[in-house]
């Protein structure tokens, strides 16, 4: 092989190589960012369980509200006296209206 043949072979090899796109680096960065913004389900669960102070506060408030609802529903008779007192007040007022001022005299 002479010197010219060698040069031709190198030129042929260069023509076979596909040139890399100019924005390859930017594309690779975009793909990496996209992959990072889609966390897995496991990661999401782990993040939820290991919450910050706000998450703990909200959880405690929700639990307290749930316990209060359960207690109120478990003691239904607590509402009865309120109803009875209301009825009593009505009866008392209606009966009191039947009485009129009087001179206190003892006569027919």
């Amino acid at each position, binding site marked *: 092989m002479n010197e010219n043949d060698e040069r031709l072979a190198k030129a042929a090899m260069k023509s076979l190589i596909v040139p890399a796109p100019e924005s390859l680096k930017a594309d690779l960065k975009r793909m990496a960012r996209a992959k990072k913004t889609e966390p897995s389900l496991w990661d999401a669960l782990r993040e939820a369980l290991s919450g910050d102070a706000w998450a703990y506060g909200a959880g405690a408030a929700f639990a307290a509200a749930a316990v209060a609802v359960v207690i109120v529903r478990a003691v239904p008779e607590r509402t009865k006296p309120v109803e*009875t*007192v209301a009825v009593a007040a009505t009866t008392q007022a209606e*009966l009191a209206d039947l*009485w*009129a001022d*009087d001179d206190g005299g*003892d006569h027919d």
Partner: protein
Amino acid sequence: MIKLALVLLLAAPLHAKPRAPLPGADELILKMLTGPETSYVAVERVQVFAPGKKPKAMTVNIKAAPGGKIRRETAGRKKKPGPIELYVEDEPAGKRLARLRSLYELTVSTGGVVAKRKTWKLELRLKTSVVLRRALWVSRDEGLLMKRETYRDDGTLARRERLTKLELPAAVDAALFAGVAPKKPWTPSGVVLAGEKDGTRTYTNGLESYTVKDGRVSGDLAEDDAARAAGR
């Protein structure tokens, strides 16, 4: 002359109208509790004297039939009809007399005229303290309770019920007593159950009230009414 004056003075009482002998307390109360043998119509005035307040009163129209059937129509106010009580007294008179006897000393004297009827006056004094608790005026002829006064421990008047008009006998429509039944539980006239809380029942007539819990009574009631309200 002196002899003549003495004769006239001694003879005068012989011409006077003889006074009716006082009946026995038990006999009078039994007659009163049994009630008249005929129907009657009456108007009653009920007065309540609360300490330090103006007296209050209400009017009740009463219709009664033999056998202890009673219909009490309270006169309404402000164009509203008043409540109607319809009941029959079913407790034997002997039991009621025994209750009064267990609590009070009973004495009889002459009473005045109430609703144009001559009366006997019955005084009920507490056995424990000799305090006059009640006075009852009972018509001499029919044995009807014409007037009743109830007193506090200090002797002040707490309540007066007086018949102001009476028609006896009177024609009363039997249909007015349809469905009549004894009061269960018993309450004094005009008193209704106002409510129940923590096992305590409260009864009221708008001005006075009493409570019943576990057979114990406290409030504005005389001893005999309290015993009856407690079921004794």
